[in-house]
């Protein structure tokens, strides 16, 4: 960053200044002996060019839209187009969620993002015994194509893009979406969106798994292959750090495990014979924006640079767009507090700003009431307005990568990269991420980190305002969104009705075709599409695959 002579002079000056610091701290000690980031990275008092001596502008930062993309994936970033404001939502029945989507679109939201309820995430129907009490609670209940038709009723699928947070059952939900598009008269080539479809992190983060690791990665590659041929504007995977972080990892672990998952998927796709230059641009990522402002910005910047180098150096990609790390961000759900909930608006705003300064392509801001329940309409509106204020009032979107060249931010970006690379090396040594997951490696690392964080909070080394400092006594409860138990009854009744009104013999033949295709090793998307068209239930399709792949059970270690 600085030429050698300059660096010498600066180092000398740093020493001189250190004496002054010693004098000052002798009289006025600093607030703490040591300062650390949220993820336990030691933070210095001051950063100067001497802290980034190796940094070469053209090699390590470069220009926006150019390798290694540290400064952003698009040439003009938010000056050209703002990030997509994509609020994740879904609750109750498809009818209720459809109404919420229309409300959000009318209020300036620019993309949809579907939250499914737990039974859908886990690939079981609403009438499953384990679904009792959960139907429509954490998201919208989708059991068959019929629910999906209602969910997107009156929403033209060639005019919105839709992100679906769905993992192991992703091929089934994608098939449902595509059939809805068909019925609207929208060609698959005009349909855009994302399925999360990131199976490996399920085993150590979100825990909505169905099939074992290797089989679930095969389904991901099937989806990629299918989309390359048939749905070119669709992102068949969103490689997700969000859940890893929420499960208790540090920022470095989030970065490393996410990229390690990405490496495993690219590897599997290459082994299938897919062209890295062709599928590379279809990959997308998803990160958490937590409370440590600069650490998060450093993480986003490091992620772009690391992925570009991984794709180029490890996989030999030459297509510039195959080197892009494009990502969605959600503010940290775990940082929300049930105590003094209005404070969460402030937390979310800072987190969202870090995502914008880190160059995100789309953003979800959490609502202030989400430590207790799904958000009310009022709370969601504040969350969306937070993004609009950042976009239109703060000036943060006026220039590209405004924090580049900050000695601190560049040093932290380097440190983030160094620590994440160490994890990736370790995972390579274990034989790759699939094997690491089978051995419980990321599980153990996350458990350790979350335990340490909790202890730091208990001991007051980490302050959470309103929780372990500045507490208040009795607090007035805030309004909470209630999901009526009638949703569960209605959903179960609809399943019964669907079963009565379809050709059950045909459905059974479709399910057998899925089993046969699974055994034969052919692409499963085609028979899944046929089953979906016949109104096969999500749980029936997933169970047919369990018949062949087996079911993964939680090892229950702690």
């Amino acid at each position, binding site marked *: 960053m600085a030429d050698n002579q300059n660096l010498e002079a600066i180092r000398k000056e740093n020493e001189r200044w250190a004496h002054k610091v010693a004098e000052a701290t002798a009289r006025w000690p600093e607030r703490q002996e040591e300062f650390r980031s949220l993820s336990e990275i030691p933070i210095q008092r001051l950063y100067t060019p001497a802290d980034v001596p190796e940094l070469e502008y053209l090699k390590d930062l470069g220009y926006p839209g150019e390798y290694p993309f540290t400064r952003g994936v698009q040439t003009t970033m938010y000056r050209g187009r703002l990030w997509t404001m994509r609020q994740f939502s879904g609750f109750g029945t498809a009818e209720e969620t459809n109404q919420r989507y229309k409300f959000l679109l009318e209020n300036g939201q620019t993309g949809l993002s579907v939250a499914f309820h737990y039974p859908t995430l886990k690939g079981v129907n609403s009438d499953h015994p384990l679904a009792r009490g*959960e139907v429509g*609670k954490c998201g919208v209940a989708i059991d068959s194509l019929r629910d999906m038709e209602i969910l997107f009723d009156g929403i033209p699928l060639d005019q919105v893009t839709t992100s679906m947070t769905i993992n192991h059952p992703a091929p089934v939900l994608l098939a449902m979406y595509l059939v809805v598009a068909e019925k609207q008269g929208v060609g698959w080539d005009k349909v855009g969106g994302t399925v999360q479809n990131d199976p490996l992190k399920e085993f150590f983060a979100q825990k909505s798994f169905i099939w074992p690791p290797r089989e679930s990665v095969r389904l991901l590659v099937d989806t990629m292959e299918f989309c390359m041929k048939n749905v070119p504007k669709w992102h068949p995977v969103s490689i997700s750090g969000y859940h890893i972080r929420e499960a208790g990892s540090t920022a470095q672990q989030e970065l490393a495990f996410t990229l390690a998952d990405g490496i495993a998927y690219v590897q599997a796709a290459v082994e299938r014979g897919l062209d890295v230059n062709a599928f590379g641009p279809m990959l997308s990522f998803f990160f958490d924006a937590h409370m440590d402002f600069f650490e998060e910005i450093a993480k986003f910047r490091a992620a772009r640079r690391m992925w570009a180098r991984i794709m180029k150096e490890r996989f030999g990609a030459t297509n510039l767009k195959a080197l892009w790390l494009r990502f969605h961000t959600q503010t940290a759900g775990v940082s929300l507090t049930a105590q003094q909930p209005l404070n969460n608006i402030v937390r979310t705003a800072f987190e969202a700003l870090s995502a914008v300064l880190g160059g995100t392509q789309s953003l979800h801001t959490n609502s202030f009431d989400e430590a207790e329940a799904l958000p009310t309409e009022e709370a969601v509106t504040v969350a969306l307005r937070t993004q609009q204020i950042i976009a239109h009032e703060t000036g943060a979107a006026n220039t590209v990568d405004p924090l580049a060249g900050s000695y601190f931010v560049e040093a932290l970006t380097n440190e983030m990269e160094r620590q994440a690379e160490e994890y990736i090396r370790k995972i390579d040594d274990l034989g790759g991420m699939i094997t690491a997951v089978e051995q419980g490696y990321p599980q153990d690392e996350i458990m350790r980190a*979350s335990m340490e964080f909790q202890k730091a909070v208990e001991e007051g080394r980490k302050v959470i305002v309103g929780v372990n400092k500045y507490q208040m006594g009795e607090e007035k409860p805030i309004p909470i969104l209630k999901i009526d138990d009638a949703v569960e009854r209605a959903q179960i009744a609809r399943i019964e009705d669907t079963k009565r009104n379809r050709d059950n013999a045909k459905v059974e033949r479709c399910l057998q075709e899925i089993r046969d295709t699974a055994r034969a090793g052919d692409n499963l998307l085609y028979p899944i599409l046929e089953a979906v068209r016949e109104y096969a239930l999500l749980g029936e399709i997933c169970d047919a695959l369990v018949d062949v792949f087996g079911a993964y059970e939680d090892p229950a270690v702690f």
Partner: protein
Amino acid sequence: MKQKKVRVLIAKPGLDGHDRGAKVVARFLQENGYEVIYTGLHQSPEQIVNAALQEAVDAIGISVLSGSHNYVFPEVMKLLKERGMGDVVVFGGGTIPEEDIPPLLATGVKALFRPGTPLEEVLEFMKENVG
């Protein structure tokens, strides 16, 4: 004579995958001398009560972040009563809105810890109510 360790079952009901809190509590209680059995994810109330019976536990801690608390806790309490295990102390935690807590406590649940509860508070509760 060495006192017999107090046995606690930590349980995750339903399809909910949020196990961070359950695991942190499980490990913390274990570090503090309790014999902890963890059910793992995806358990029905029936399975939880069966595990409690088999493992002869003194307490059950249930973690719910799926919004199904108004179903899970009363169901577990009912099953415990049916099996004559009314003396097992049941407590829980998760994303449970304040206003849902009193009716659940009325079913016999001993304590429900809200997000942000210090682990020490759980430990104190255990010492006072279980041993």
